[in-house]
């Protein structure tokens, strides 16, 4: 099978409010797809349908991934459970020590979420998602509440882990730099009801960094493209 995920004619509306309009897309194994759109466009609704929390109004998603990791916008950690217990809550059979050390959380196993910084809580959120070695990692504006240094360090960690053992990624964001850093493909969405406006391949070269010339060049061309869409809308 070439694709781990195929979306066919997917639409979603709440009562008379259309949110997603006729989505058709596919995602290859190990591919990194970023959905870029304005706030309230319906990106999170798509992820909720993908993760089974909501049903589509029409169309369907063929999901061939057996293991899915989800990194939420807010960490969603159980406040009265330690870091270790939060990870074991999701999967009690997995060795958590390796992923904690990989994400620079070794030594914090017995800490409660309230004893960690915002960045560390988000790393635990990521550790929980990566612990079971997922085929598909879903990132729902996972870095939007973090400052640039924490954000870039977590994104570097994800990039390193992906290079060691590629897994498919679907991330939603409204941050262009974030999208360019993470993506192999960027899908630009229209404002609500969200439609796929443009599917762009991203190839910044072997090295990914916020300041790499390839990414900066892509960023300026994407800004031009987004501005042209805005003027059309």
């Amino acid at each position, binding site marked *: 099978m070439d694709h781990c995920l195929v979306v066919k004619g997917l639409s979603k509306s709440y009562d008379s409010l259309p949110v997603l309009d006729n989505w058709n897309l596919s995602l290859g194994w190990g591919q990194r797809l970023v959905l870029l759109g304005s706030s309230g466009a319906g990106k999170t609704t798509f992820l909720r349908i993908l993760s089974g929390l909501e049903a589509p109004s029409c169309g369907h998603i063929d999901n061939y991934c057996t293991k899915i990791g989800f990194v939420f916008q807010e960490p969603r950690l159980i406040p009265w459970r330690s870091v270790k217990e939060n990870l074991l809550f999701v*999967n009690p059979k997995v060795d958590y020590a390796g992923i904690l050390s990989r994400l620079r959380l070794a030594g914090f196993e017995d800490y409660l979420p309230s004893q960690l910084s915002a960045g560390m809580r988000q790393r635990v959120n990521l550790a929980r998602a990566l612990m079971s070695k997922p085929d598909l990692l879903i990132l729902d504006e996972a870095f939007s509440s973090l400052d640039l240094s924490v954000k870039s360090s977590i994104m570097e960690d994800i990039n390193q882990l992906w290079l060691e053992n590629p897994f498919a990624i679907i991330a939603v964001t409204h941050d262009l730099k974030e999208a360019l850093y993470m993506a192999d493909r960027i899908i630009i969405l229209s404002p609500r009801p969200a439609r796929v406006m443009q599917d762009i391949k991203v190839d910044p070269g072997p090295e990914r960094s916020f300041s790499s010339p390839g990414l900066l060049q892509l960023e300026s061309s994407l800004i031009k493209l987004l501005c042209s869409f805005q003027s059309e809308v």
Partner: protein
Amino acid sequence: MKSFFHALIGIILLLAVWQLLALILNKSIVPAPAETLSLLAEMLIFPPILLAAWQTAWKVFLALLLVMLIGLPLGLCLGLSKTVYSMFRPIIMVIQAVPVISWLSLVIFAWGIGWKGPVFIAFLSLLPLSILTTVAGVRNLDNNLLEMARIYRVPGRRVIKDIYLGSLLPFIAAIVDVSIGQAWKVILVAEYLSGGSGLGVEILRMRMNIDFPGVWALTLLAVFLGIITERLIKKLLGRLSHQWTIA
């Protein structure tokens, strides 16, 4: 230490008001605190009073246990399903509205004089509180945590243990807090009116003998026992709930 002194000042104030009332009113109706305490000390070496205290205490424990064992799961079901809640809400309202005296008449007809009546009445008086407080707790659950558990397909048993119990803990503590004092009061009244044994029956006996200092001493004993029970149950609850608390 500061709060201990504040509590001490409160107790001294209470004793002062009591002493003042004893001086103003008829001493046979309101005996002085020292007199009541010495009478209580005498009673405590009198086996029938100790037995009566024990008989009331176990009824209180049994009523609280039943309230917790039945009220919490029912509250959980009602909190999880709006349909079940709508079905049970009128029943709960009826239980809340029926006066204790009507329940008393019914239980005397059903079981006669004995321990079942006071336990049943205390149970019925406290059941709506435990159900409705648990429902409020369930509705207050963090939906984000439940969604996280759904996405990761965490088994229901683990979700109840790790998310539901932890979230409901403050509500369970509130139920215990309110129920202990209420249970003592209701059991004493029910014993007084329909009980075969217990402190309520002893208070009735003292009243019939026009022994008001005796009534005061037994009341004081009931208050002490109520406070001790509350402390014990809270300590027990604290130990049981240790794993769900945010240190």
